């Protein structure tokens, strides 16, 4: 591969840049075509093709040495530095895999939109994809911030594409606000990273920052700013409040990209700054990230369990997964500071693997809810149920996604969670003793989060797809179209493949791990068996595992069918001797989440609405409110209001007062000049 690139001059970064330009061109073409529905729809399969292209470029980026390029766009004298190394290559692969499936799906899903909204989507959708790719390619702070802002703005416009709904506008505003608080933190971070300006004009490039010399305090400051900036984007508690509002507000394919891919851009950024631009790390950073990650994971999964809106449930579940990813990242930082390169490689492999898995199954689940939404017209679980029989394609493909995200073998979610738990189990013997004591508790929390995720997913799938329809109108629900099925099929098969061939995936992502940790995760088990570091310690072989289950299943099926009777009679379900059983007697979403609400009631504020005895149609509702609003955000709002009221005291609207202010200002300035 080395040789080939030298001879042919193939540079992955140029190819990636070409992909970005293609996406941008699709957006530009959509502007003049904005009244031709048919042409606008062509844009989505084309965007999917570019996604496929990005997969190829990402893989070559992983395999080939890093390539850099300077592109003279933007202000004169301020060219854009681009670079594609293994880390960017991995995330480009993630972006491409998710973007392909989602864009194919979007072609079918968006065709029912009215033309105005479709035009807005067709313009901003490719810009969003291009911006994310550009974030990965940027090799200087300026290009990075431009790409980062472009990503935030394009996704904002996608979120508010249905701007007539007030909630959506509100969610969009909150999103924009939080995105910019994060962006300010990132600007400060890059400011610190520039160091003392030794590098002169080029100080804003990443290559200058890599060689910059920072004092430990400066490095910590830079890392903290990065953690705030990227944490706000990733939905790290307590900067998560926008996520359950904004992600569900967007059209489903956009939600899929935001949850599946955009959150990973924040992970990319933190990896880039924490492991690449900052050459030295400190152990307490790792502890901080670990604790924040655990808090986020636990908080996210508990709130996911009590949601009754399908997309909000998935958004909270994204927060949980981000928490798991950051937990692994914190562990990786701790290991790398302690000089345990092999363990850092294990933790980072788990992090990257889980990021890729989450991109795939969360995209699958979000686009699946799009089909449900389209078929039923509601996002509320109280109006769903029994869709499995009406929408078998969506139902079965979503089942794969649900099993994957619940961390069940032999699908992909299990592999990354297994690796993460292994990283925790290998831990003992750290230099910091309090960490040795803390890690068992952390391991326990992770186990709890994973088990709760299964609860959440049983609720999600069971209430939507199984049981009886809770709304009579669902009798007319229809299966989703061909494009949508193909998109979901792509994402679901990727989940299956990543679950069955972990050894190959680990080899594929090892260059990125090598770049970050300086070591790769050695697999002791060959291509069939996944055995990190030492086969005697732990191993897992999904392919034989799956084949064994399948073989036993077929054998038992055959035996039972041919040895015994295969008589079958359909009859009404048993009604407990009660004549009037209706669909309302099944658990509602609130009912299914009630035990969690009960057990974790101290985490949340529960507002219940009880039916009155006289009600003809009794209605019970309960909402669980995020306490962080009360702890953190509302006090800030109150403080800002108070400050502005104080400032308003100065404003009287009388000219003599303003003249007095000028006079006093003048006096003060004169004193200082003296």
């Amino acid at each position, binding site marked *: 591969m080395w040789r080939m690139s030298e001879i042919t001059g193939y540079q992955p970064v140029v190819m990636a840049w070409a992909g970005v330009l293609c996406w941008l061109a699709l957006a530009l073409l959509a502007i003049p075509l904005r009244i031709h529905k048919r042409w606008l729809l062509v844009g989505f399969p084309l965007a999917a093709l570019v996604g496929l292209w990005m997969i190829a470029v990402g893989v070559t980026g992983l395999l080939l040495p890093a390539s850099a390029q300077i592109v003279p766009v933007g202000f004169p004298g301020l060219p854009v530095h681009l670079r594609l190394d293994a880390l960017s290559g991995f995330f480009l692969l993630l972006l491409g895999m998710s973007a392909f499936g989602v864009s194919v799906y979007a072609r079918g899903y968006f065709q029912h939109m009215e033309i105005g909204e479709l035009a807005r989507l067709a313009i901003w959708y490719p810009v969003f994809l291009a911006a994310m790719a550009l974030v990965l390619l940027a090799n200087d702070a300026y290009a990075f911030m431009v790409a980062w802002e472009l990503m935030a703005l394009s996704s904002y416009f996608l979120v508010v594409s249905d701007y007539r709904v007030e909630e959506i506008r509100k969610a969009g505003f909150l999103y924009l606000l939080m995105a910019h608080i994060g962006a300010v933190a990132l600007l400060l971070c890059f400011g610190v990273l520039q160091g003392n300006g030794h590098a002169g004009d080029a100080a804003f490039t990443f290559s200058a920052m890599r060689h910059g010399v920072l004092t430990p305090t400066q490095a910590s400051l830079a890392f903290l700013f990065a953690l705030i900036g990227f944490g706000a984007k990733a939905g790290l508690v307590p900067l998560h409040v926008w996520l359950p509002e904004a992600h569900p507000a967007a059209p489903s394919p956009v939600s899929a990209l935001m949850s599946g891919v955009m959150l990973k851009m924040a992970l990319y950024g933190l990896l880039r700054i924490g492991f690449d631009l900052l050459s030295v790390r400190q152990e307490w950073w790792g502890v901080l990230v670990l604790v924040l990650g655990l808090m986020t994971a636990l908080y996210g999964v508990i709130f996911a369990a009590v949601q009754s809106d399908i997309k909000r449930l998935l958004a909270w579940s994204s927060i949980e997964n981000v928490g798991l990813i950051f937990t692994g990242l914190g562990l990786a930082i701790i290991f790398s500071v302690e000089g345990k390169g092999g363990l850092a490689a294990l933790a980072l492999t788990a992090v990257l693997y889980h990021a890729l898995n989450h991109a795939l199954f969360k995209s699958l689940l979000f686009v699946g809810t799009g089909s449900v939404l389209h078929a039923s017209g509601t996002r509320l679980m109280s109006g769903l149920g029994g869709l499995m029989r009406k929408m078998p394609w969506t139902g079965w493909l979503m089942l794969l996604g649900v099993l994957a995200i619940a961390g069940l073998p032999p699908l992909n979610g299990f592999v990354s969670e297994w690796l993460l738990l292994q990283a925790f189990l290998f831990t003992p013997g750290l230099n910091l003793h309090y960490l040795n004591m803390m890690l*068992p508790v952390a391991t326990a929390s992770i186990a709890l989060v994973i088990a709760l995720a299964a609860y959440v997913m049983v609720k999600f799938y069971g209430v939507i797809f199984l049981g009886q329809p809770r709304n009579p109108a669902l009798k007319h629900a229809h299966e989703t179209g061909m494009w949508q099925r193909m998109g979901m099929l792509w994402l679901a098969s990727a989940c299956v493949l990543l679950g069955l061939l972990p050894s190959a995936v680990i080899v594929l992502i090892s260059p990125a791990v090598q770049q970050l940790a300086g070591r790769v995760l050695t697999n002791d088990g060959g291509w069939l068996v996944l055995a990190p570091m030492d086969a005697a310690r732990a191993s897992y072989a999904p392919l034989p595992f799956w084949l064994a289950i399948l073989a036993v299943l077929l054998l038992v099926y055959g035996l039972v069918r041919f040895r015994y009777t295969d008589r079958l009679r359909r009859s009404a379900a048993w009604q407990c001797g009660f004549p009037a059983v209706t669909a309302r007697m099944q658990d509602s979403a609130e009912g299914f989440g009630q035990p969690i609400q009960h057990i974790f009631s101290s985490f949340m504020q529960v507002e219940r609405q009880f039916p009155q005895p006289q009600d003809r149609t009794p209605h019970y509702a309960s909402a669980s409110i995020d306490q962080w609003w009360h702890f953190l955000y509302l006090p800030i709002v109150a403080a800002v209001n108070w400050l502005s009221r104080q400032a308003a005291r100065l404003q009287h609207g009388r000219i003599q007062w303003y003249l007095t202010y000028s006079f006093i200002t003048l006096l003060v300035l004169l004193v200082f000049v003296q």
Partner: protein
Amino acid sequence: MSGGVVLQGLQTVLAVLAAPLLTGWTNQCRARLQGRRPPSLWQSYRVLHKLFHKETVLAEEASPLFQATPYVVFSCMVLAAGIVPMLANDLPFSPVADVIALVGVFALARVFLALAAMDVGTAFGTLGARREMLVAFLAEPALLMVFFTVSLISHSTQLPLMVHVLAHQKFAIYPSLAFAGVAFWMVSVAENARIPVDNPTTHLELTMIHEAMILEYSGRYLALIEWSVALKLFVYAALGIALFVPWGIAPVGEEAALPLALLALVAKMAIGGLVLAVLETLNAKMRLFRVPEFLGTAFLLAVLGMLIHFLLES
């Protein structure tokens, strides 16, 4: 190698065939303790035989998922039986899954069963599924923590190595193992739907968990589920034996030790079934929202075991 494969097959088939016997034995012990005339030891087999021959009645709304679930659950349990060392250690199938994957197998079976329970859409089905998942999300982390405590002692999550280390160590007392053992007992009780968490013999709507989930099953489907329940109890018993009283399991390549291993297994299983019956007779089923406290205790015990390992044993 081929000997290993044969042994592997034998052990798995033996577990599958012997599983209803353990259930029968426990039922017999319990009946005696409660002053009833015990059913025959072979009663569980007769029930299975009867169910397999009966016509299956299926709810009109049942989807293919509902029909596939008994097979999936049964296959998962057979796989679990293949992983846990019972007679001989280090069989060829054991590298396929370590203890974490074993927990995953149980979780897979459970999720399928819960989904199938919600499939028909009766009030009982969803009630059972919700309660089962409630018990599961508390029991599963506790089970993982038990395994982690043992794996810290053996430096491995592979069952054969854990068994090897624990069976062949110089005699040493591990306080952490005591905590883990108690936690494991509590978790097994919950996971196998036994008293005091659930009662396998009741069909009272206020209390049932597992039985509520499988209420819609009949005929061959019910037979498969009943068999998997028996198999699950058997595998859990074997797991407890492997982790906490592993003496007697034949090491690699020692065929001569097999008869003794079989004898030891039968004896330990018989004692285990008796203890289970005694505890089920002495205890009453607890209220549903007492279960989180019960399993929370198990979880804390397991975490304490792990902490104690760090404090005293490392």
